[in-house]
Every structure is written in C-alpha cells, then in structure tokens.
C-alpha cells in the first residue's frame, strides 16, 4: 500500500501543470467580475472572451455558440430541460429519445421531464455493446420528437456511438440532437462544421482541467431556454458570475487535448488492448463489457466477473495500491447491479462483479504490467468470500 497507482481517469483527472499555471493569475490578479465596467471587470472579461474564442475555434464553433456551465451534468440538464421545453414551445413536439445507457445526468433529467413536465421519454434500441442501432433509429424520428440525446462515449462500458450518423439522421428530420461528450472529448477532437450535432456537453475535469466547470455547445438556431435564470451572462442562457479562472483552465485543457489527442490515443489504446487481452486470458469467467477495440474509448477497459462482489474487488485492489472503479461510482449504496449492464442483459451474478480500468496520459506500461500481475490473485481472493 506504499505506492498508489491511479487507474480511474474516467472518474476524474489531475489538473495538468500547464493548465494550472494559466488559471492561477485569475484567482487573484485578474479577479474582477466580467460584468463590471471598470478596469478589473475589463481584464476579467478579456480573459473570458479569449477562453471562449479559443475553445470555440477548436470546436469549429462561433464563440456565441459556447455556454460555460458548472459541469458536464449541468450542461446535460441545460440541453435537455432548456432544449426540450424550447422545442415544445416552438413546435409542440413533446417526445424525448435517449439511449438506455445514458449518464444519470441525462436519464434522470429525462425521467423528471416525463414525470413532471408532460414529456414522453423513449429509450432507443442498442446492440449488446450498448451502441445505437442506426437502422432502428430512423423510423423513430417522427414529428413529435422534441429532442434526441445519445452519449458520444459511455462512461461505464466505454462504447462509442456513431454520433456523426445519428446527427445526419436527426438533421434530415430537423430534430435537435444532443450528445453528452464528457468522456469522449477527453480523447477526440470535434469539429462542428462537419459533425451534425446541435448540442454537446463537455466537462473539464475529465481532460486534465479543473472540476466545477463545463460547457454546452449550442448550434446557432437551436431552440433553448435558460434553466438557471438571473443576469444575462452567457448570452442570457445561463445566469451567474462567470468563473474566470476555471473557464481559462478549461480552455487551456481543451487546447491541449486538440494538440495531443492523437499521440495520447496511440499510447492509451496500446495499453488498453493489452489489458483487455490479458485480463480475459488470465481471469476465469471474465467478459469484456462494451465494444471491442477502437469502437470503445482508447483509455477504457471494462469487465464483468461472475460470482464476485465488485465493490469488494475495488477495495482489495485499493489495498494493493490500485485505484479502479466498478463503472458507476456508488461507494456506500446498495449493491444493486448497474442499470446499464442490466439493460444489456447481464444477470446480477455477472453485473455485480464489474470492474472499470481507465488509463491516463501519464499511465506507464510498468504500472499496467504490475496491475495485471496482481489482478488475477485479487479476483480469486474476492471470489473466495462469495463462495
């Protein structure tokens, strides 16, 4: 337990030094409120504008299309609540289509819109890896659909979705399409001049930026109402004094992803493939969850092991010095199987024994090799408890 190896970058990442150094001056020197008219306000607004322009440029977007929020979850809330209600006001459509493997920030928001705001919510068909089945999607894109929301990459099982193709279909039917790209954006550049997506949720702390800051890209012309009302910040779409240091940090971290994504992916996917291959070979009664190879996140390996308490496995691995996750973090709650795994057809005996390993840009091969050496023994010990 003397060394700690962090293999849970899907949960969060440390702030990159280069990001931190951009942020620090704005915590004190440039502390002003961007809405103020004086010198300090102007300085702060300048940083805000620069950050917004930088991020927008990397996305291929206009600065006015980028709304800063407090988190990826808030971005999802704004997209669904603000997007669905605005669309219903404009067109009378009241159906929301989401995938069955959405993050709770989307699925629970959709559920509340269903229970309290009179929307209908339908789950889209997916294959066994959680991927949207395109051929089954098109017939569902009817005039009463207010919004389609499909995550770009799943946090639990790493599967990527064909957002380009989904976007094309939605565009053809003139239905707004939102994607939660919180995991995806840590690994892939996006260009909205080519990607037909209307709203994209981002969260900085998944790509070596600070926690507490996110963004929602909203394509010009997409109907949206503010969810958090108040002042006219963020083009009247999200009230609150802008968090300049975090916004500057997010913009820098986003820039680094664009510059380094290709090289990070190469490094990560090689390690990921070794983990998948070796775990399946070394651990009896193990299965990969989610898609194979490059149809999944480059840093993401997820498994289920039958007859095993996944939470206990995480504790045992932690006591051996390796920080992993069971996929959806719930450290004190009921040992209920994940709804994603259950939806994909895993029985509780398998679904309760889930393990997610998510690598970071600085993860080394030595760390992965050492982890792979101890994992089979840990699984065996945890299985003995269940026996």
């Amino acid at each position, binding site marked *: 337990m003397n060394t700690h190896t962090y293999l849970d970058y899907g949960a969060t990442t440390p702030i990159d030094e280069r990001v931190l150094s951009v942020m620090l001056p704005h915590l004190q020197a440039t502390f002003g409120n961007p809405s103020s008219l004086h010198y300090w306000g102007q300085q702060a607004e300048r940083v805000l504008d620069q950050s917004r322009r930088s991020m927008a440029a990397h996305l291929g977007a206009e600065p006015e299309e980028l709304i800063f929020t407090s988190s990826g979850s808030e971005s999802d809330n704004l997209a669904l609540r603000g997007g669905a209600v605005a669309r219903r006001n404009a067109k009378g459509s009241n159906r929301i289509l989401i995938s069955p493997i959405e993050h709770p920030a989307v699925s629970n928001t959709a559920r509340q819109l269903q229970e309290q705001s009179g929307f209908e919510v339908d789950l889209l068909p997916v294959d066994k890896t959680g991927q949207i089945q395109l051929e089954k999607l098109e017939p569902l894109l009817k005039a009463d659909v207010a919004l389609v929301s499909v995550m770009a990459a799943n946090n639990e099982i790493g599967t990527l979705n064909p957002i380009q193709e989904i976007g094309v279909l939605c565009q053809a039917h003139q239905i707004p399409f939102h994607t939660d790209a919180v995991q995806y954006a840590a690994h892939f550049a996006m260009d909205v001049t080519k990607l037909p997506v209307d709203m994209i949720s981002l969260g900085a702390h998944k790509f070596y930026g600070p926690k507490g800051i996110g963004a929602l890209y909203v394509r010009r012309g997409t109907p949206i109402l503010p969810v958090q009302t108040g002042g006219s910040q963020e083009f009247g779409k999200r009230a609150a004094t802008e968090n300049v240091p975090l916004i500057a940090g997010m913009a820098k971290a986003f820039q680094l992803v664009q510059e380094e994504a290709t090289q990070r992916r190469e490094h990560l996917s090689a390690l990921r493939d070794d983990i998948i291959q070796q775990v399946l070979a070394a651990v009896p009664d193990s299965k990969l969850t989610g898609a194979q190879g490059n149809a999944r996140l480059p840093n993401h390996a997820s498994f289920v092991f039958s007859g095993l308490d996944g939470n*206990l496995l995480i504790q045992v691995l932690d*006591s051996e010095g390796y920080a992993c996750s069971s996929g959806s973090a719930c450290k004190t709650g*009921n*040992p209920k199987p994940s709804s994603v795994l259950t939806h994909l057809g895993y029985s509780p005996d398998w679904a309760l024994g889930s393990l997610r390993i998510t690598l970071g840009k600085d993860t080394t091969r030595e760390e992965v090799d050492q982890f792979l050496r101890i994992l089979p023994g840990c699984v065996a010990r945890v299985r003995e*408890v269940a026996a």
Partner: protein
Amino acid sequence: MSSQTEERIVVGMSGGVDSSVAAALLKRDGWQVIGVMLRLWSDPGTENRCCAPDALIEAREIAGQLQIPFYVVDAKESFYKEVVEPFIHSYAAGETPNPCLSCNRLIRWKFLRSRASALGADKIATGHYARTQTLPDGTIQLLKNPDPEKDQSYFLHLLTQDDLRSTVFPLAELTKTEVRQLAKEYSLAVAEREDSQDLCFMGQGDYRKFLRERCPESIQPGPILSQDGELLGEHTGLADYTIGQRKGLGIAGPEPYYVLQKDLRQNTLVIGAKGSSNRREFFTHEVNWISGNAPQEPFPAEIKIRYKSQASPGLVAPLKDQGARILLDHPLPDITPGQAGVFYQGQICLGGGTISLEAP
C-alpha cells in the same frame, strides 16, 4: 500486542470513541490498519444507529486522520435475514431476544473475517472491552475487562477459537476513562454519543410498533392472571411485556405487580408480587463453549443472565445437544427466555447460551 512489522489488520469502525481508539492503538503498534464499517439494515425511513450517516462521516474522518484506508461493506441483506427475522420470530415465540448477540457472531465477525481475508489481512480487531490470553496448549481464553461497568465479554460469548485466533482487542484492559484520555492524546475527532438502549435497526421507534407492523399475529390481547389463576385484567399482546416488568401493567394491588411468566400457548400473562417468580433453575440452549470442548461434568461458575446484571454463583451442568442446566446458589428474579446466560470462572468467560425455562 508487541510491535508488528506491517502485518495487515482489519478494524471494525463505528465512528465512536472505542473503535477509533482501537484503530489508533493498532496503528501505533505498527499494524497496517484497514478500517471497515458495516452497513446494516434498518426499518425503512430510519437509519441504522450502528451506521448512521453521521457515524459514517465520523469514522471516515478518523480514518483520514490516521491515514488508513476505510471501506464501507454492505451487510444489509444478511443482517435482515440473520438478525432481524430471528428477532421477530423470537418475540413471536414469547421470548425477549438480544439481537446484538446474533449480530456479533453472524454478521460482525463473519463479515469482518471474510473481508479481512480478501484484503490480505489475517487478523481483525474491534473496540470491545475484553481481553484474550493464550494457554500453553494453544487454547485462547476470553477474559473480562477489569472494569465491571464496561466489560463486554457477555456480548462475545458466542465467539469460537477460530474467531478469537484471528481477533485482536486493542482496548483489552483499558477503562473508558483511559480510552477517552487516549482519544484526546491522539486528537481524535470523535463525538461523544450517548449510549442508546434503542435497538440499532429501529431508529427512535419502539419495538412494539415494529412487531405490530411485521408480525401482527404475535400480538393478540389476552388475559392477565394471578399465580392462582385469578383473572386480573387484559394484556395487549405478550410481546409487549418483558419478564420482571413492573410499569405499564395498569393493575392496582396490595403491593406492586411484576410480570412473572408469559404463557404463549394460553396467551396469558401471569403477574404477581416481587420475588414470587424468583428461581434458581433454568436452562440454556445452543450453548457455545469458547474452548471448543463442552465440559463433561457439572462445574461451579458465575452466571450472568443479562449484560448489565451481576454474575451470580451457581452450578452449570452440561447437557447433550449443546444444552446446559443452571442451578444458581440463590434465586434470581428476571430470568428471561431469549436473553443469554453466560458462564464465567473468575475473569474467564467460558461461553454461554440462550436462556430457556424448559429443558432443551
């Protein structure tokens, strides 16, 4: 407990002062300590007192202070099956059960030991006030804490040699005052919670309400009789009464009445004057002998019939099928079926079983 070299140990933590100091002492002695808190079932809408959110926050804070890993283990389902259900059944059978006893054996030790073995630890520890000593032949004895007010060996009489071999009691001979002093010395941020008499899984509730909801057929009104069979009134349901109870009978007499007997078959409650149900003889069933070997012959011992009662001298005669017959030197009131009768010889806790008034 001499200094160890990084041997792993799992300590059961509750957020209270006892288990916090236990963890601190283990850390001081060089153990590689892992804190574990069990999450137990509670009546829906309430929090189990043994793992309430504030207890969880306190335990995590202590673990952080001591820089030890801390994990929460879900034991709700087992706790319901092995503690709560038998508790209901025991009341339905006219007994007055003590669920802390079955919790220790069936939940605490079982979960802590199995988790410990998965976590690569050979040993577990708890913050109980009790000691052990190992005899030359390897047998481990369970001994009282010298402070009769705090001694908790009564709750540990169900442990086996295997349990004791893998258990460390860091508080051993410490008094509560010393433990509080140690908490201060280590600057442990433990809140002083009042010891509660409520059962952990019922929140603030009353067990009578709990039983009415879960086992209504066990609570039927019936007659209250004198020892001579004279009808004195009506009871609200036998489970509402405990042997020795005085308050709440609602019947006036020449001298205060006490509950003497609960006759489940006739659904009658027998009451009478204090002392009129005192008895010398009773039985215990499902006896655990801590040494692992049931004695062959009757032997003199001191017997505790409740956690907070004094040990009384008497004779314990082992019976077949894990039974025992107890003959006290002097009659005692309040010998209550469902509670544990625990046998001592001086400081040594020999074991014990569940009290019954009838031979097993």
